[in-house]
């Protein structure tokens, strides 16, 4: 339970480890976009985690990165095709950021060989939930500021002018930057650039 909790908050992939900042900035213009990208990324991450745990340690050191990226690309293409078949609208709204999951730092991280499979999977599940949480929270903030709505439901009336900058990439950078600063303040940290 502690491992799961750590992935959600203490080692949140976006707000603490700084993984997946590109989708956080570019695609969380609405909460639903954040939700879909978060869930699809998590599915690919969990699948690759399972395969990587059993395959990667058995390979030569020099072959590992190539095989790892090949596995991630394979899963990304499969999931992309499935989503395209089920709901083409999601593929259209996520655009190039859906196949870009293949180069997401969270998905490409190295498996820790010293950990048991159960612990490894639990850690990946925690990080996945943390990633979805970050994407949805940023999506809610940006959609509310930019459109006065949350998950498509209009909250503010037309008399309040929306802050359309929030739904653009520059606005996304500023909002994500401020969100990271708030997390730093809460954790009493600042200045670190995690590798």
């Amino acid at each position, binding site marked *: 339970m502690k491992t799961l909790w750590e992935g959600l908050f203490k080692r949140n992939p976006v707000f603490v480890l*700084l993984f997946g*900042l*590109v989708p956080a*900035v*570019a695609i969380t213009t609405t909460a639903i976009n954040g939700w879909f990208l978060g869930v699809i990324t998590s599915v690919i991450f969990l699948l690759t985690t399972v395969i990587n745990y059993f395959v990667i340690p058995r390979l030569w050191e020099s072959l590992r*990165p*190539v095989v790892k*990226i090949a596995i991630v*690309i*394979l899963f*990304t*293409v*499969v999931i*992309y*095709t499935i989503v*395209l078949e089920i709901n083409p609208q999601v593929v259209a709204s996520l*655009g*190039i950021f859906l*196949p*870009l999951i*293949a*180069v*997401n*730092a969270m998905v*490409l991280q190295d498996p820790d060989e010293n950990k048991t499979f159960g612990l490894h999977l639990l850690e990946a599940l925690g990080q996945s939930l943390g990633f979805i949480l970050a994407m949805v929270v940023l999506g809610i903030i940006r959609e509310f500021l930019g459109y006065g709505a949350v998950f498509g439901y209009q909250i503010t009336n037309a008399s309040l002018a929306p802050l359309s*900058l929030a739904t*653009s*990439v*520059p*606005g*996304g*950078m*500023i909002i*994500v*930057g*401020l969100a*990271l*600063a*708030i997390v*730093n*303040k809460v954790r009493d*940290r*600042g*200045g*670190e*650039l995690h*590798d």
Partner: protein
Amino acid sequence: MTNGWDFFAQTIITGNLVLVQGLGIYALIKYTDNVKTAAKNGLTTLVAMGIGGLLVWMFENLMFVSLGVKTGLYLIIGVVAAFSAPRILGMRISFQENMYQSALVGSLLLLGTEGVVAANNLSLPLGAGLGYLLTLVVMATLRKRLELAPIPKALKGAPIILITAGLLAIALLGFRF
């Protein structure tokens, strides 16, 4: 009809990959601690984008079974380009480290979504690469100045880099109107 020069010019400033499209944020944070590192990484990515564009141009007439397979090919070309560029330039950048750069793969995926054909497959990535190099160098220079500024502890590091990049991006958007 948009020609090669239009693609080239647009992707340097008004369609800048990092500041307007939101790609390559990882590089913006990791490789802008000094101008030399930023220029080195920017140059490697520019060459990788050129190689990628050339490969996409070579394979553009292939018939694809589905959009998923086509996307897979773009991703594989991205991997090949990320692997070969540092070796061509004789730079010591690990393959895995180069793969984290969404700007390279993103620029190639944009070729597919923008419906780019023929020689434009080269002009868009080259423009994007030049814009990427420019952004990284400008950001590295700004970070040097930020080191001397009295910034609150919580804003230091990634937050202030993102906020500065956001303000720089707003300035760039001014060229669009």
